[in-house]
């Protein structure tokens, strides 16, 4: 199995020399799309692992590895026939909430320059964790997400509505907002960060500060920080020329 446990030897194995093995492994990993070893910013591995995005992606990895033969049914709606899934942690977070006049909002920025060219987006979602609100009780809230299409220095930014979820102020858990509709635009303007803005309103239209509604931002514990995940379907298969 590809999960790392070694199958019994079914045929005689000739030991490769160290150099041969390294070349062979490097060649196979290149075919896997791991051409080179990236230089990670010095984050110790242990510090990274508990973060929410890798945990979520590890679950996806197990789901994807589980559906080894193609028609075992799709393990998850989003996973579907995706070949590549990327998670993005947000770089910048702006709060237009406490102390500002209405409407209150929270904005997240994502650097999408790492998306490989030629990939078609099949789905994209923004995940943010919500804890029970300590300020608002027994209230139904509308949580909507917009894409920041254009910012202006002298007036409000141009926004594009993406998704809306309705829940109770006392609810807790991961909120999944569908931002697939924004993907057409971001693939066209790769060098621009993707801006997502969250608005929270009560049923009678009053704006609530997202933090007061219980939505967590970058101050949250590592395992509950917001992130975006995008599912791609590769169009071209990579065939390597024979040595």
């Amino acid at each position, binding site marked *: 199995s590809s999960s790392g446990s070694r199958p019994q030897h079914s045929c005689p194995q000739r030991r490769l020399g160290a150099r041969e093995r390294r070349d062979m492994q490097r060649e196979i990993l290149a075919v896997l799309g791991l051409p080179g070893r990236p230089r990670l910013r010095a984050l110790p591995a242990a510090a*990274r692992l508990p973060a929410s995005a890798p945990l979520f992606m590890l679950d996806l990895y197990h789901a994807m590895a589980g559906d080894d033969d193609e028609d075992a049914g799709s393990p998850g709606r989003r996973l579907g026939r995706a*070949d590549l899934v990327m998670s993005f942690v947000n770089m910048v977070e702006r709060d237009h909430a406490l102390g500002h006049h209405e409407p209150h909002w929270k904005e997240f920025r994502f650097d999408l320059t790492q998306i490989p060219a030629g990939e078609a987006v099949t789905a994209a979602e923004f995940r943010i964790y919500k804890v029970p609100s300590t300020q608002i009780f027994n209230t139904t809230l509308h949580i909507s997400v917009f894409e920041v299409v254009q910012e202006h220095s002298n007036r409000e930014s141009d926004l594009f509505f993406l998704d809306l979820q309705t829940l109770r102020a006392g609810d807790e858990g991961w909120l999944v907002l569908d931002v697939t509709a924004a993907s057409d635009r971001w693939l066209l303007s790769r060098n621009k960060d993707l801006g997502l803005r969250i608005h929270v309103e009560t049923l009678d239209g009053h704006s609530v500060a997202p933090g007061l509604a219980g939505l967590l931002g970058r101050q949250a514990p590592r395992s509950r920080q917001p992130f975006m995940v995008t599912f791609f379907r590769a169009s071209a298969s990579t065939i390597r020329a024979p040595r």
Partner: protein
Amino acid sequence: AVRPLKRRQPKQTNELPHPNKLPGIFDDIHSSHGRQVCRRHELYVSFRDLGWLDWVIAPQGYSAYYCEGECTFPLDSCMNATNHAILQSLVHLMKPDAVPKACCAPTKLSATSVLYYDSSNNVILRKHRNMVVKACGCH
């Protein structure tokens, strides 16, 4: 004196053997030209060995298969199993009568997935379909 009968040497031909007569693993492993017939070998690709484990989240490694020996396939080069599986099947599909199915054409391929960090600490899950030979024609 009786002369011992001379053993007739097989006639040298340049044709490709008909695919059904390719030597199997239980036949005489040395074909008529003393070349070792192609065999499937297993290679465990270990990220740990390559020292890449701090950016590859899962798996720790995976089993791949590769062929070694002389394939009667006209390319006559020794490739790793994944390349072999994909390339050979394609050429056979394109020129079925010119290029026979090689001895270790895959009979079962499976996907493999790798989860890793990229240089911006984003997490990437990449799935490659039909990339690992699970079973092939050698046996």
